[in-house]
């Protein structure tokens, strides 16, 4: 037969443990929410950066710019018929 004192200690101990666990869980939840917000923000930033880089790539590789660089800086010109081969 369990003594009344032991039973009381067990109940109080359990209550204290559960209360501590609750506080700890709440803390974990808070930390996780901060982490989630941070990661979501980072994800959005990366998406934004990707769009910008995509646009920058399109701008830097636009045919008119490449043509100017090829002709003016690299001295290139349209090939002769004999220089064209089927890729």
């Amino acid at each position, binding site marked *: 037969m369990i003594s009344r004192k032991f039973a009381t200690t067990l109940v109080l101990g359990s209550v204290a443990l559960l209360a501590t666990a609750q506080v700890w869980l709440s803390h974990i939840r808070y930390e996780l929410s901060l982490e989630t917000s941070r990661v979501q923000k980072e994800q959005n930033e990366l998406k934004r950066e990707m769009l910008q880089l995509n646009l920058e790539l399109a701008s830097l590789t636009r045919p008119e710019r490449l043509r100017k660089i090829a002709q003016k800086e690299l001295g290139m010109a*349209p090939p002769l018929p004999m220089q064209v081969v089927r890729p």
Partner: protein
Amino acid sequence: MSRFDKSEQEKVFIRRRLEAITGLVAVGFLLLTIRAVDLHWLQADELQVMADKQRFRQFETVAPRGPILDTHGRTLSESIEVPSIAAIAREVPKAAIAKLADVLGITEKHLSNKLNRSQGFVWLARQVSPDTAEKVMALNIDGIRQESEWRRYHPLGPEIGHLLGFVGIDGHGLEGVERNFDEQLSGTPGIRLVRRDARGHSLPGGSWLKQPAKGKTVQLSLDSTIQSIAYAALADGIRQQNAKGGSVVVMRPRDGAIVAMANWPGFNPNSFGNHKPGEWRNRVITDVFEPGSTLKPFTIAAALDSGKWKPESRVFCEDGKYQVADHTIHDDHQEGWLNLSGLISRSSNIGVAKVALDIGSERLYNMLVEVGFERRSGIGLSGESPGIIPPIGRWGPIETANIAFGQGIAVTPLQLATAFCVLANGGNYVAPKLIADQETGRSHRVMPKKTASAIMAMLEAATAPEGTGNKAVPAGYRVAGKTGTAQKPSADGSYADDRFTAVFAGMAPADDPELVVIVVIDEPQKSIYGGQVAAPVFRNIVGTALPYLGISPTEHETPDWQVIKTALADDHNMASRSSLIRLSLREARKISSLRGIQLRAHGTGWITRQQPRSLDSLVAGDIVEVWLNE
């Protein structure tokens, strides 16, 4: 009073007290029950909403607009998030206005006007650069806030402005593809529900009340490289002729795909506000012109179709002057007898008019309608003109004769391209399309393959050295095409003597056309003839686009009327160079072998460094070391 009476009285008093307390407790419970019912039942919905407001937070997420891509997936139009500056007007201190106006780059008065417009939320500067936004926020002025908006960018700028159109500040398309495919491109904003803790921080989880949907991608059949080639060639041709403007449309005949569509002067959709609304018009589809001689192949096709005429049939061209009713038709060159092929290559108005009068107006009219004139192409862009063909009931001999050589009829460049695709497709009409994954449009036979082949042979002859279109042929390729020159109508309805439209319509390679190109030059000043003005533009486009498409030249002799600049200078110039910097390894090898020096190379790409710095001191057998860097 007896002892018994006293005891009875106490008992009654105690009972009354108990009853009173019991009554009070009962009333208390009753009130609590009423309150509980009130809170949990009567006010439940309202209170639930209030509680949810505390626990949950809703926010709207803006979905970006979908991109527009070319046929290879290259970005033609994309939205990115940019900062905008807004304010709660009543909270902005007056003392800060001058400083704020300075950073925003507007006048103090202008800013004050904006702030006085409303007490609440007002936009101060929309879609500003990140630097400006950072400077404004660094001022830390009460009531000033930074918002995010999506801004549309078109990296190709003026080259493609007319086709793509642009997007207004509210994110909706106002012109071109942006406008006509707005529903598809626009994103749907989402609403997210997030749970908050007592301190207001978001808790993990959360749910979407409405999922945001990014706008769909619109992929065009357009090839941005060919678009750029076409725009550059057109701009060059117009500058050389000091012309007013011009248009080019390039189509792939087998599936009707529009590969390029350019107008000059171009307009930059990234700064559309700097251009007049008239300059936004995509003239390839909105403006009509008299096609002139480029319509002759269809008159000849109608004649061949009638069975009364054969390619070798001959017509007397009246030595340059021919009377139809009270109207005289002239030829630029006096011609005698010509067969049908000769009519095309010598471009005789009189010969073609006589053929048309012989087959009758109805046959000609039917042919023109069948190949796509007088109706909108249905590519999905608004503002498209159906062109003008006079009602068949009004065609007398003069009208029939004039329309036979492209006068008294008006078409759009796109319609002319579609019609030439019929010839390129062996007589099959294929509806033009602008969207890459769109199924090939309705297709039907307009003329027998034999007729189309005969016309193609005539068109190829028209670009031969003695033909009017000889300047349209790029070295190494066979071209079929027709030149055209038409007087422009003046305000009083007659023809202007000094204003012309020069046209070239053609396709290449002639034996299996990959591209159909229409070049229209508006009011050229140095020459008025399509063969002199528009044909060289065609040659530049086709000569650059075909190698790009992997179509090798079949003719290896360079015609003597063309001069091609080669990538490599001649051997003598190469050998006399003292530096190899910026050359390719192949060129460096050529120079070193010409001078008999040894070459040691490191890396790949272009030469960025060489040792020794000058080749001048080297003699045969010496070593030059080069470093290449991509």
